[in-house]
């Protein structure tokens, strides 16, 4: 049997969930025996080179690029997993959702106490993704099949989840590893 293929990405997250993946430490050696990584910051493959079994998404969607990548993952992965609070509910980036976008941009680029921007330049280039009105959890944009909670999710939980996904077994979540923080 071919090894299951995994892909991962970080959207509007802090890469903390990916750090937590790395926190499985020496089990990583076991993991690469069990699965094959495709598009992911872990191996630096930038585009899908084959159909993927499990796509793992860190972070919610705060700009047009995030939406694009998320849809790209949905189109290329059989199973899509939201990893962590930001993917599941927007998380800390979504704290801006109750503040008007204009105010956020002014605070970041013009009025912030540590901002130096004498020419008052606001990011506005067609190369740059467009900021969305709000930060959205991934399941409000595409269908998500599974969720791994935590901020970040505990490394053991990620390990268990990956192992069960790779072997197709059902995972009973321990109370102690089911946390929103």
């Amino acid at each position, binding site marked *: 049997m071919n090894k299951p293929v995994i892909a991962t990405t970080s959207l509007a997250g802090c890469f903390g969930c990916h750090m937590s993946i790395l926190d499985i430490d020496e089990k990583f050696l076991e993991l690469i025996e069990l699965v094959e990584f495709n598009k992911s910051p872990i191996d630096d493959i930038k585009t899908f080179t084959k159909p993927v079994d499990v796509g793992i998404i860190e972070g919610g969607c705060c700009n047009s690029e995030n939406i694009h990548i998320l849809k790209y993952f949905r189109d290329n992965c059989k199973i899509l997993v*939201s990893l962590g*609070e930001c993917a*599941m*509910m*927007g*998380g*800390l980036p*979504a*704290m801006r*959702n*109750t503040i008007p976008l204009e105010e956020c941009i002014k605070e970041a680029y013009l009025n912030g106490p540590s901002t130096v921007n004498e020419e008052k330049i606001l990011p506005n280039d067609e190369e740059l993704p467009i900021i969305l009105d*709000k930060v959205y*959890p991934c*399941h*409000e944009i595409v269908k998500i099949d599974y*969720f791994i*909670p935590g*901020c970040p999710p505990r490394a053991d939980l990620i390990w268990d989840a990956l192992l069960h996904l790779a072997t197709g077994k059902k995972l009973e*979540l321990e*109370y*102690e590893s*089911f*946390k*929103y*923080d």
Partner: protein
Amino acid sequence: MDKSIKIKIDGKGIIAKEGQTIVEAAEENGIYIPTLCHLKGIIPSGSCRICNVKVNGRFLTACTTKIHDGFEIENNSPEITELRKIIIETLFVSGNHYCPACEKSGNCILQALAYQYRIMIPRFPYIYEQREIDASSPKLILERNRCVLCKRCVRTIKTDDGKNYFAIEGRGHKARIILDEELAKTMTEEKAMKAMENCPVGCILKKETGFIKPIGERKYDKESISKVCVK
């Protein structure tokens, strides 16, 4: 002597005392019925509905309903669990709950209920309603993004001569918790602490007391609320 009454919860016969509510009778017999707006020892208000049970086929709130002989109560059926999940999910989307950044995380009843019922994501879309934070009083912060309007603060935190510190202002989705500006100025340390404790979520915060307990030592870190509440 208290008259004893025989009732059944999920088919299990228990003996309780006349005058007890379903929640009290259940707790005394080691059975967990979730509560949120209710606080042990005060008059129940029956507003959050999380304690919904079916008594002889009818939905009733277990915190307000006194037991009677022959009550057959359903507490853990799939139907009731589903209803409770809907209530919890509704509360999550109608406020702004960023647990990783919340002072009450690990000690919060709403969060503990979500853990109890293993809620991954709410079935409803998030509203992200704009709610104003009030940090103007000397001892307390009102982080209204997290208020569930349970009125526990209104009902329990009073001056020695019985005046309310807290009140609900407005109606419907505009309803919000307010703190009497004048009374807040003379609030004692103990009262401020009590206000924070009695708030089931992270809305009432005593200044400079957040994040005191490390992760792992908080109330619901190791054990679910059903175990913490029924010991």
